[in-house]
């Protein structure tokens, strides 16, 4: 179980954004990483009074990002139990600057299963014009699905992998964002096959923060034991272009 400490220091200066500065949503708070961004390992401590936060490790990839696409993506974002909005608009907690992205494109909503002790998450499509592909399912406006531990999401050309590491806090959760230069969702070579292919993940280069090219650019999981490598990942066949959102 991973726990997270956060420092209330001054935020690091961000890359200049073409958009005028907008007031931050009050339900979210950007956090500086406890260690430099390039270090893949985060030191985690817990005070006696705090419960460990659920961590959403979010990897993002766009094949042709513009200079402003990820300009508003912080290293970390703490959010309360209201839905976390992803979109292009000023109300979005995760703001991505893509012309085809709706102002509110999707939301990640925490909730508790009956009898559950850890936050679960629901992904809901909020775009009236676009759609969201989630773990093989295409969501249209107002459709929603519960998320699994590892989730592959595609929308407006963006690829997003969300890895949920459960904590016991019911007050808030934290998103840790990672920008991947490599695609996150691959097309299998045998296109006529719909079978699952299990490809063991290679160890990421330590300290470099760079992803091994040509392989699954995946999340850093310092809390995961890795005697022979990171956990095996099941790849899913990339949907045909017409089905991509």
């Amino acid at each position, binding site marked *: 179980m991973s726990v997270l400490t956060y420092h209330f220091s001054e935020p690091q200066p961000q890359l200049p954004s073409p958009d005028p500065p907008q007031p931050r949503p009050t339900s979210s708070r950007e956090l500086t990483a406890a260690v430099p961004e390039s270090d893949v390992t985060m030191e985690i401590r817990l005070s006696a009074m705090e419960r460990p936060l659920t961590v959403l490790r979010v990897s993002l990839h766009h094949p042709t990002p513009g200079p402003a696409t990820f300009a508003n993506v912080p290293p970390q974002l703490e959010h309360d*139990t*209201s*839905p976390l909005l992803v979109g292009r608009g000023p109300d979005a907690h995760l703001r991505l600057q893509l012309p085809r992205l709706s102002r*509110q494109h999707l939301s990640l909503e*925490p*909730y*508790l*299963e*009956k009898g559950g002790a850890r*936050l679960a998450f629901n992904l*809901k499509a*909020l775009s*009236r014009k676009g759609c969201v592909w989630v773990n093989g399912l295409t969501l*249209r*406006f*107002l*459709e*929603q699905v519960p998320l699994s531990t590892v989730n592959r999401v595609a929308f407006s050309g963006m690829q997003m992998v969300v890895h949920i590491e459960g904590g016991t806090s*019911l007050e808030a959760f934290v998103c840790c964002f990672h920008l991947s230069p490599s695609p996150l969702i691959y097309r299998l070579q045998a296109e006529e096959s719909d079978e699952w292919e299990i490809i063991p993940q290679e160890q990421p280069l330590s300290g470099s923060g760079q992803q091994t090219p040509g392989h699954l650019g995946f999340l850093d999981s310092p809390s995961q034991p890795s005697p022979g490598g990171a956990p095996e990942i099941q790849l899913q066949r990339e949907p045909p272009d017409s089905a991509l959102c």
Partner: protein
Amino acid sequence: MSNFEDADTEETVTCLQMTVYHPGHQQNGIFQSIRFFNREKLPSNEVVKFGRNSNTCHYTFKDKQVSRVQFSLQLFKKFDSSVLSFEIKNMSKKTKLIVDNKELGYLNKMDLPHKCLVRFGDYQFLMEKEDGESLQFFEIEFSLSTRPLLQENNWLPQKHIPECGSYSSCSTQNNSPIEMGENEW
């Protein structure tokens, strides 16, 4: 006439009828912020919050025993359906939310049945959905009941509040037990 012929086709709108009851509503003014018998139109992606805090809640109750955010309602669309459904979520850490006979704890949520009774504390809400075609908007309309909803013979809400203030003198309720089918309230 040309405007009528050229105008966009109107769609019916999903409406949630909410009949509310609280034993102390007359003395304490807990529903003073609620506009009764008024259909309020809301965007379909809105998360509608109910509680004491007027800064965060769309509908507020003037009652210190109500949580700042008590519960929320939002629309969603099921994969195999062309109509919208409601989902209710308990946002209170202190109070359970009871939907029919199901108890929801903090952050628990469930699909709202087509017609159901929602309770927390002394509050009772009879909620009934009217299906509509529109995916863009929905409506909420409140009615006030001056009698408890959790009684066999009192499911029909009073649409008109008598000016005399006395419900019983204007009552048209049938006080004899009403036979109901298995699947009816």
